């Protein structure tokens, strides 16, 4: 056992954990669950699951189009989810919240609709530390339109390399699409500063906030982004829902993406006209119950306090960085101190492949992620094929971090490195 250290967290972890029944599960061989994979998907509190259950069993109906009492209840519940999400991220208007199926669809929506006005000679700027979901949609948009994809590099210590910013951002730059918090390195990027420079050259700024919205208070009204994406299942909400926030004026200027019911104004066989945002971008029956669940999720987080959650993440990351540095042969990918560091740490363990690290930890109930974490380019940047990632959330305890550190010691001894 590593020496006990202290963690200063504003959260009452025991009472938080009591809301997440899965955290008391016992796994194979009698080990308790040590869930260190929240950057992949967060666990759900009872409150969210109860909201889903109550919706399905008492208020279920289709929305908007349904004129009866259940329809009115379901519509109020769905649109109530939109109100809650708007308030949660500081959106000036509820009509700026578009519900998608996940962050990936939100980013594809951005790439398709902004892509509609791209042409050869135009440039789209991303970065080497993006999640695949903020790379591939822009690659496809550039293929469709003949625009050119450029990117920020990553420095040796895992930060965006901003030294090239003045060459990268020019009057040819139409879109700058960046992650706020790297899911692989944990790096928090200076979005506001980059957005200012991007706007100065007339580019539209798209922010992948999939790892940001779960972790700290977000206020889109002051951030400087034009579009921002995140995903429900990482903010203690359901799977099957994501969010695209957009400045209303921009959304109103964008063409439709998916076509179908609800996104239309008038459909004639010979051609159709489209509804105003957000409906324009919500084709078909939307994720109704999921919006209800997401509303309950952001209510839950707000009840705890996003500032407290951010402070807890900060403490636990610091605690984990310290602990991991005591493991022989362990190299941290990305920033090695807790400054501007989100709640995920990726690392290599000399002599053991990350999958093998993960499997051995798993036999002790410790759930981490191994692989490229949907961010292959940044792994290539560091000359590695994959890594092991531990990630934390509002329910993560220092004891769980200790279990990880001890577990890594066991991995080393199992593979005869210690």
């Amino acid at each position, binding site marked *: 056992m590593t020496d006990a250290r202290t963690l200063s967290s504003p959260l009452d972890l025991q009472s938080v954990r009591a809301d997440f029944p899965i955290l008391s599960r016992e796994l194979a061989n009698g080990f308790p669950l040590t869930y260190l994979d929240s950057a992949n998907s967060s666990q759900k509190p009872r409150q969210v699951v109860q909201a889903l259950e109550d919706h399905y069993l008492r208020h279920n109906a289709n929305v908007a189009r349904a004129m009866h009492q259940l329809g009115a209840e379901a519509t109020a519940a769905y649109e109530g989810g939109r109100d809650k999400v708007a308030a949660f991220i500081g959106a000036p208007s509820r009509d700026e919240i578009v519900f998608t199926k996940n962050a990936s669809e939100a980013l594809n929506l951005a790439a398709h609709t902004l892509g509609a006005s791209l042409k050869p000679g135009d440039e789209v700027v991303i970065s080497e530390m993006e999640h695949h979901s903020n790379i591939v949609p822009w690659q496809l948009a550039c293929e469709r339109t003949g625009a050119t994809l450029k990117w920020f590099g990553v420095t040796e210590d895992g930060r965006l390399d901003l030294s090239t910013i003045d060459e990268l951002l020019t009057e040819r730059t139409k879109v700058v699409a960046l992650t706020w918090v790297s899911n692989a390195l944990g790096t928090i990027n200076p979005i506001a500063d980059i957005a200012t420079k991007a706007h100065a050259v007339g580019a539209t700024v798209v922010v992948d906030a999939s790892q940001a919205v779960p972790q700290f208070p977000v206020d889109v009204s002051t951030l400087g982004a034009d579009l921002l994406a995140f995903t429900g299942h990482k903010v203690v909400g359901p799977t099957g829902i994501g969010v695209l926030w957009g400045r209303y004026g921009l959304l109103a200027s964008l063409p439709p993406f998916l076509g179908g019911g609800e996104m239309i104004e008038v459909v004639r066989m010979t051609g159709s006209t489209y509804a105003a945002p957000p*409906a324009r971008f919500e084709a078909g029956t939307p994720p109704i119950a999921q919006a209800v669940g997401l509303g309950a999720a952001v209510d839950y987080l707000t009840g705890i306090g996003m500032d407290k959650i951010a402070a807890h993440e900060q403490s636990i990351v610091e605690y984990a960085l310290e602990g991991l540095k005591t493991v022989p042969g362990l190299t941290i990918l990305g920033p090695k101190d807790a400054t501007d560091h989100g709640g995920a740490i990726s690392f290599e363990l000399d002599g053991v492949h990350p999958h093998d690290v993960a499997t051995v930890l798993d036999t002790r109930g410790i759930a981490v992620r191994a692989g490229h974490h949907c961010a292959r380019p940044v792994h290539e940047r560091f000359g590695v094929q994959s890594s092991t990632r531990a990630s934390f959330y509002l329910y993560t305890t220092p004891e769980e971090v200790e279990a990880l550190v001890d577990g890594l010691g066991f991995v080393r001894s199992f593979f005869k490195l210690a």
Partner: protein
Amino acid sequence: MQLDSLYQEIILDHYRSPHHAGLAEPYDVEVHHVNPSCGDEVTLRVELDGDTVTGVTHHSVGCSISQAATSVMTDLVIGKPVAEGMATYEEFLELMQGRGNVEPDEEVLEDGVAFAGVAQFPARVKCALLGWSAWRDATAQALAAREGVSNG
């Protein structure tokens, strides 16, 4: 949820013989608004003289609530300054969104008070607002067009 509070006689009267129905010439701006979730449609024309609403005519396809509300709206705005019409709209909107807890002012809303019951039928609120949204849009466009001319 009382039916009679929704379908007041005044509403059914306006529905059966809507005021200012039939698109008239001349006009400044024509708009076409739709309630996409149910398909109600209104084509509406406005004519302004300075800041005064001189004419509003419409062709509407839709339910009793949407047709009657459009009819009542024309009575409320024609002959009034644009600003007054907009203020009346705000008051009507407040009534509609009040879920039955707002006391309507008959001085301002005239026949519009008959729609107080609609507020208890959330699915029908959009119907009552369709004509108003068309009028606001058309009027805004007419004002903008005039600005464009006088500035240009």
